[in-house]
Structure formats: structure tokens, C-alpha cells
């Protein structure tokens, strides 16, 4: 009989393993989710073009590595060099793309006080333009890249094997999250961002340069998406012109799950979504992971319409 085959043994037999795997998957969601949440927190705008900012980051990594002549599992010094170069290049290109998106597409609309729907349609259109442009330029097939980090087990807890890639992914996400948190809560620009999120007009009258704050949040979102792109390349080893679509959707879901506009919510939502997906894939088959992800979203929003940690960037304070 055909039906949903639920394999509890597969899940609970290796619960730790799947949790670690889910966390590392979720870290990438979380980093991209931060970009959605930052922009939403300040502009109340869902920047669908953010997924393409991520996609461009992955292609930047591919390009950088091929320029540097990366090969499969090189020496440790080369690995570090490749990772750093990939991070810097992807963050720079993604950051620049995000800022350019704001300049080209949104700033004029803001000046004209366009209604929210116009922003949304612009965002979707821009997302399509960018991804299709890469489809034409880079081809529509999956693009492979050298396996820079050979997956190996770093340590074992019980029957849970933790790999180097998982450790790097989760650590990198946590460090960047921490840095962003400090930046938003303890620097003059972070204060500016929170002020604009809470009351843009008043903030401007108190000397905050609104355009600069908005460019800044796009830049920060882009930098984080670039970092996510590197981690994605390390984890999956391939990319494609439309890689941003599903990942962007998941990251957006993660942001809503945690409470869109809330930085810590994005982290929580991302990690949770990653774990749920891996659990669901283990219980049934990977065909069901997307279903599970969105079912969790629907259920959470039924009980907490503003997401797990509530919304508003202004409230996301220490």
C-alpha cells in the first residue's frame, strides 16, 4: 500500500545526529533571514530580491574559487585562504548588490511615497530579473564547484557524529549573529536603525540620516547573505541561477516564524526550521520536508500571529 511511511526509529535512533544536521542547515536560513528581517523591521517591506542577493553571493564564491584555482580538498592553509577569500568576495558583492537594489529600485519609490503593493511587485520583479539574468549568463544547469573542505568527523558525542562543516557553519552563523546584535544594540548606527524603525520621521528630525540608515540595513543584510552563500557552497558544493528561490522562501519563512523584524527571532526561526526539515525528512522522505516546514509555520502563526519572539526591530533590544 502506498502512503506516508513514518519511520520513528530512523529519527529517534539518531536524534542528536539529525538535530546537529538541522542546526547547521538552519544556520544558513538564519543568516539569510536576518536580511529579510532587518529590511522589514525598518521599512515594513518584504524584500523578495534578497534571495537573489544570496544567489549572486554563491556565484561569487564559485568565481573566486575558480580564479584562485581551487581543487578538491587542498592543504589546510589553502582551505583557510579559499574560505576567507570566498567570504570577503561574496560579502562584498552581495552587500554591493543589496545596496544597489535599494538605490535603483526602492529609493525612488520611497521618495514618491508609493503604496506598499508597488514595493512588493517591484521586489518580485527585481528578483525574477536578477535570477533570469544569471540563468542566461551562467546557464541554467547546476554549477558544481570543488569540495574545498573534505567532510570529516570532528568529534563524537554518544552516537552523534559532528563534522567539521557543521561546526564551521553553526559557529560562523552564531558569531555573525552576535556581531550584528552588538552593532544594533550598542553602536550609534544601531541606535539610528532602531530609531528609524520606531519612528522614521521623528528620527530624521533628531538628525538621523534616514537614507543612510536604510542603505546601511541593506548593506548589513547583503553582507550576511554573502556569508550565508559561502556556507551554502561549503555545505552543498553546487549552485544554480534559481538557488535563491527556495532558500529565500525558507529564510523568509524562518523570519516570520521567529517574528519578522526581530533579529533574535530570525536566528531562532532559522535554526528551528532547519531542525524541523531534517526531522521531517528522516521521518518520511525528503519530499516531505518542505511540507513540514510550512505546516510548522502555519501552526505557529495560528497561536502566535507575530511569530515566536514577536515582531519589531525596535523591540529587539538587549
Amino acid at each position, binding site marked *: 500500500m502506498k502512503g506516508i511511511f513514518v519511520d520513528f526509529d530512523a529519527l529517534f535512533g539518531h536524534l542528536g545526529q539529525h538535530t546537529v544536521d538541522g542546526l547547521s542547515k538552519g544556520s544558513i536560513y538564519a543568516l539569510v533571514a536576518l536580511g529579510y528581517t532587518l529590511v522589514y523591521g525598518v521599512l515594513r517591506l518584504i524584500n523578495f530580491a534578497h534571495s537573489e542577493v544570496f544567489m549572486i553571493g554563491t556565484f561569487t564564491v564559485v568565481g573566486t574559487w575558480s580564479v584562485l584555482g581551487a581543487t578538491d580538498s587542498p592543504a589546510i592553509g589553502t582551505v583557510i585562504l579559499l574560505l576567507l577569500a570566498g567570504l570577503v568576495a561574496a560579502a562584498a558583492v552581495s552587500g554591493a548588490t543589496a545596496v544597489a537594489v535599494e538605490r535603483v529600485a526602492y529609493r525612488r519609490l520611497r*521618495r514618491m511615497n508609493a503604496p506598499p503593493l508597488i514595493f512588493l511587485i517591484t521586489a518580485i520583479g527585481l528578483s525574477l530579473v536578477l535570477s533570469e539574468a544569471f540563468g542566461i549568463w551562467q546557464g541554467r544547469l547546476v554549477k558544481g564547484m570543488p569540495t574545498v573542505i573534505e567532510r570529516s568527523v570532528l568529534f563524537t558525542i554518544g552516537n552523534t557524529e559532528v563534522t567539521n562543516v557543521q561546526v564551521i557553519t553553526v559557529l560562523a552563523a552564531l558569531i555573525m549573529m552576535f*556581531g550584528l546584535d552588538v*552593532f544594533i544594540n*550598542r*553602536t*550609534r*548606527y*544601531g*541606535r*539610528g536603525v*532602531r*530609531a528609524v524603525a*520606531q*519612528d522614521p*520621521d*521623528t*528620527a*530624521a*528630525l*533628531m*538628525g*538621523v*540620516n*534616514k*537614507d543612510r540608515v536604510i542603505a*546601511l540595513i541593506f*548593506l548589513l543584510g547583503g553582507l550576511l547573505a554573502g556569508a550565508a552563500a559561502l556556507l551554502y557552497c561549503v555545505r552543498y558544493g553546487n549552485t544554480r541561477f534559481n538557488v535563491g528561490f527556495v532558500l529565500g522562501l525558507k529564510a523568509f519563512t524562518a523570519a516570520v516564524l521567529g517574528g519578522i523584524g526581530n533579529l533574535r527571532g530570525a536566528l531562532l526561526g532559522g535554526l528551528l526550521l532547519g531542525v524541523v526539515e531534517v526531522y521531517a525528512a528522516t521521518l518520511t522522505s525528503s519530499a516531505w520536508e518542505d511540507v513540514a516546514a510550512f505546516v510548522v509555520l502555519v501552526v505557529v502563526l495560528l497561536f502566535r500571529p507575530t511569530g515566536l519572539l514577536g515582531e*519589531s526591530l*525596535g*523591540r529587539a*533590544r538587549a
Partner: protein
Amino acid sequence: MSDTEDLVSLPESEAPTRTDLLVVDHVTLRFGGVVALDDVSFEVRRGEILGLIGPNGAGKTTCFNAMTGVYRPTSGEVRFDGDRVSGRKPHQINRLGIARTFQNIRLFPEMTALENVMVGTDSQHFTSVPGALFRLYRKRPKPEELPVVDSHNGLVRAWQQTRLVFAKVFGISRHTLEERAGEQKALALLRFVGIADRANELARNLPYGYQRRLEIARALATEPKLLCLDEPAAGFNPAEKEQLLKLIRDIRDKGYTVLLIEHDMRLVMGVTDRIVVLEFGKKIAEGTPAEVRDNPKVIAAYLGVPADAS
């Protein structure tokens, strides 16, 4: 849009007079068919407290918004210290030296009182975004700027020691120094307006009177030449009004010029040097409090008697 940006950089043809800080020059403002301000002219002189009064709906707040660049006059212009105000962005107007408070309090509700004021002090700081992100621009600290080691808890003390050594070796970032300076200045301002005891409370949790004072502190933090107060005494009892009067005088004595919008006549009479009276968008009187008080047009406007009834 493009024409306004050109205007910003144009040199002012008219040389600023020494005494006039802000000049409202034949300003008319229409919203569709409604004339909110009709050919209003007056000036704010350096170091004075000018009252802008009028019955409800007279156009006081509209006038205020035109002066602070929220609205752009349909005709006429507002000049501040010789520079044209309209056409600039709000933060540029703030940087010119105009700061304001709001009739309906508009604090940043989810920030502490101290942070609210620091948003104001931030406008005076220079750390760049990379500077705040990476803290690479470092200065050798003066002895009094070094982190203190004063805890008796071993762990905390070790952490303080580490920070001290770190600061000695790598210096202190300009961002950190500016943050501290901003915090000190913000605290001083909170003390000045008398609410320093609740500096670390969220603005939305502060009592009403504190919120009003916090708005004043935040506006002062941007180091304005002109402080505009929009009905600062609204909702105050007589004792609180008296304290507020004292505060406004203290502010003037510190060298600020104050523009005060108010419809409480007694408050305005007690504190202002000069008064401008608006009614239905027109200026109907201007002069010292005594002159204005005896002006039949003003009496008529406030008591509802037609001015030309005699």
C-alpha cells in the same frame, strides 16, 4: 525633486541680519483648496523666547511644520541663519540648528530614556559605519579613559584586568570614546531637565511629565541654535507648568533661542519676550506680552467677538 537639491547649495542672496535667527518670510501654505497659512511673516531673534499663540486650528503647528521643513511653503520662504530651510531633508535641517519637540509626544518608545537622548547626541558624532563595525580607528587613551578595575568578584576583576591591558596595548576605538562622550552628555542633559533618576527605563514606561521633559532633553542633545517647543505644557497641572517655565528660562539662559507654541495664555505671558498671534492662518498681532494682551484683535480671537464689531 531635482530642483530642490539645486536650491540647497545656492548661496543666499540676502545677507543674514545679526539679530534674526529664523525669518518666516511671507509664507503661504495651501493644502488643496484650504489655506493653512496666509502670507505669514515674522522673525525669531537670537537669545529670545518667542511665543507663537492662537486659538485651536489657527495654524500654529502648521507654521511650526513649515519652519522645521516638514511642509514646504506654497510660496514665501523660511530662512534660518541666512540659509533657506525648505527643500532640505529633515536631518539636514536638524544639522542647521533647529530641533523640536512634539505636541503629541513622539519618543522612541522601545528605547531607554538615555538611548533616546543619545540618538540626539549621535548627530554630533563622526564614527563611520566601518569604524563602528570593525573599530580599527583607535586612539591612545588618556589615563582617565582607561577601564577601571574595581570589582571584588574574582572573575569580573579578571575580565576588567583583561580589558585594561587590551586598552593599553591596542588603544580605545574612536567609536567607544564617542559613545562614552555621548552617554555622559546625555546623562548631563537628563539631569538638567530633572529626570536622570529614570535614565535606564524604557521611554514608554515613563510618566507623562517625564516623557515631555525627555523630549526636550533629546532635542537639546542635537545642539540646536533654535529649540522649538510645541505645546510643552499640554496636560500639565499648575505646579508642573511652573516647573516647566523655570526649565524654559534655564534653557534660554544657557544661550538657546526658544520658540514656544502654546495656547495657555498665562504660560506664554509669563515666559516669553515677544509673542506672535495667529488666527485662521493669518498673523493678527505681534509684540511684547503686554502689547499683545491689550490688542483688541487678540482679545476678540480668544473670546470669539468679531474684531470689527464696534
